[in-house]
């Protein structure tokens, strides 16, 4: 953990060298998500509800998903750009150091500019909360915290799968974006609106629903009392991702030089 802090400080120092670039990227990130926000606003002004969810509730949902995704992206950016690390042989360097590989890869990239998007997510979230008249209880606060943790873990897991696949092939891995960027976009709405099949898939295979749909129901006083704990179950998803990564490291063949 102390080492990660050190990496964090290093990235911050590097960042100071390019302040303008950093601020522009942040603003860009903010505006892109803001655009999506506007899109939803106009659509729901027309239709007012989506399968029983009001505009404000959808906002809440999107705010949380976006926050989870952005957090994961800031932390796990090293996995997201892992193909270039393999291509340039930088992973060799990781292997000749007496520390855990995952920690080093995580430390290799920390994306501060995602703060723009996180900010946008927080704004949406807070707005969604204040207008959808949710009454705070201890259970609900717990639900939100666990949602954020579980969501970050799941998205990090998917990034880890991407990185693990880089050990086998570097080409054609764009399809993974369906599960990351795609999930972020689809995650705007509660998973249930995509149908029952999709909900099952997102409950048992890639447990998006456990970090989004079910706890959300709880927040809106429509769920069962154990729903806030479901994000913890979602964290199990990380295990197979981790095993795949381990397999990948074994398979590593380095790049010529």
């Amino acid at each position, binding site marked *: 953990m102390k080492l990660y802090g050190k990496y964090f400080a290093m990235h911050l120092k590097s960042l100071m060298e390019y302040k303008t670039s950093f601020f522009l990227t942040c603003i860009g990130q903010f505006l892109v998500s803001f655009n999506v926000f506007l899109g939803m606003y106009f659509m729901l002004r027309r239709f007012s509800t989506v399968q029983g969810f009001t505009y404000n509730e959808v906002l809440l949902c999107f705010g949380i998903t976006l926050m989870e995704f952005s957090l994961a992206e800031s932390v796990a950016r090293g996995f997201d750009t892992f193909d270039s690390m393999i291509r340039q042989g*930088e992973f060799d360097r990781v*292997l000749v150091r007496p520390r855990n590989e995952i920690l080093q890869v995580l430390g290799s990239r920390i994306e501060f500019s995602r703060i723009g998007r996180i900010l946008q997510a927080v704004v949406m979230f807070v707005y969604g909360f204040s207008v959808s008249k949710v009454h705070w209880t201890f259970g609900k606060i717990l639900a939100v915290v666990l949602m954020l943790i579980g969501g970050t873990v799941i998205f990090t897991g998917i990034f880890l799968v991407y990185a693990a696949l880089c050990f086998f092939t570097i080409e054609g891995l764009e399809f993974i974006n369906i599960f990351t960027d795609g999930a972020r976009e689809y995650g705007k709405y509660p998973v249930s609106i995509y149908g029952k099949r999709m909900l099952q898939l997102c409950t048992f295979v890639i447990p998006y629903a456990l970090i989004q749909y079910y706890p959300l129901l709880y927040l809106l006083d429509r769920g069962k009392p154990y729903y806030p704990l479901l994000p913890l179950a979602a964290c199990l998803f990380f295990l197979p991702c981790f095993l795949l990564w381990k397999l990948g490291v074994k398979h590593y063949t380095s790049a010529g030089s």
Partner: protein
Amino acid sequence: MITLEHVCKTYQVSKRDAGFSSALKALFHREYEYIHALDDVSFTIQDGEMVGYIGPNGAGKSSTIKILSGILTPERGVCLINGLVPWKNRIEHVRNIGVVFGQRSQLWWDVPIADSFELLKEIYRIDDSLYRRNLEELCAMLQLSDLLKTPARQLSLGQRMRCEIAASLLHSPSLLFLDEPTIGLDAVSKLAVRDFILKLNQEKKTTVILTTHDMQDIEALTSRIILIGKGSILLDGNIEDIRQDYPSTEEALAAFYRSHDL
């Protein structure tokens, strides 16, 4: 001590002809070629030795270094370094080695060198007193004192290489791999680097394994060379063994390569 016995490493390389139609064909049916990067390689290196590991491009030098440093796992063969198998006891093993890749930097591009060093201190868990002592010593030997506050991107190649070498030695490893440490350096920097490596080997008794294409490096530094070609060891001995009557080592080596059809 380093022992390598009958080590083999094969790469699978996908192959296709140029052009769109063959690219399309490769989509459905891929042809692979197997390249024997290392074919039954064996040698022993004692503690405190300095060995030049030479051979033409693609001979298997880097593969050997990568196996020795725990990056790659060979298919067959035994490799023991101070009683450890590099790819099995990776973390324990790499605590004791330093690696300099001449073509790749381990310094952070945008932050002062001193910060990069501090990070390494954390990575290797070097304790304060040892770190301070090593840093002082390395600064004196490599003349780094003025460079520590400069970001890596503003250093010249020679300055950066000196910092790279220092970075690999902060944790006082007993074994140092240098993969083309003098590549692209000017005469002054080359001499400085050579001087340092020699001193390190003599004073600290650090085992050094050096790959290079620069024969002057070899002449200046090592008495023992291991020559590899097409994945097999062709010569393990003295530079004089191939020098014979040729006017320079360079030419002797070229003739040697040619005679072995490398």
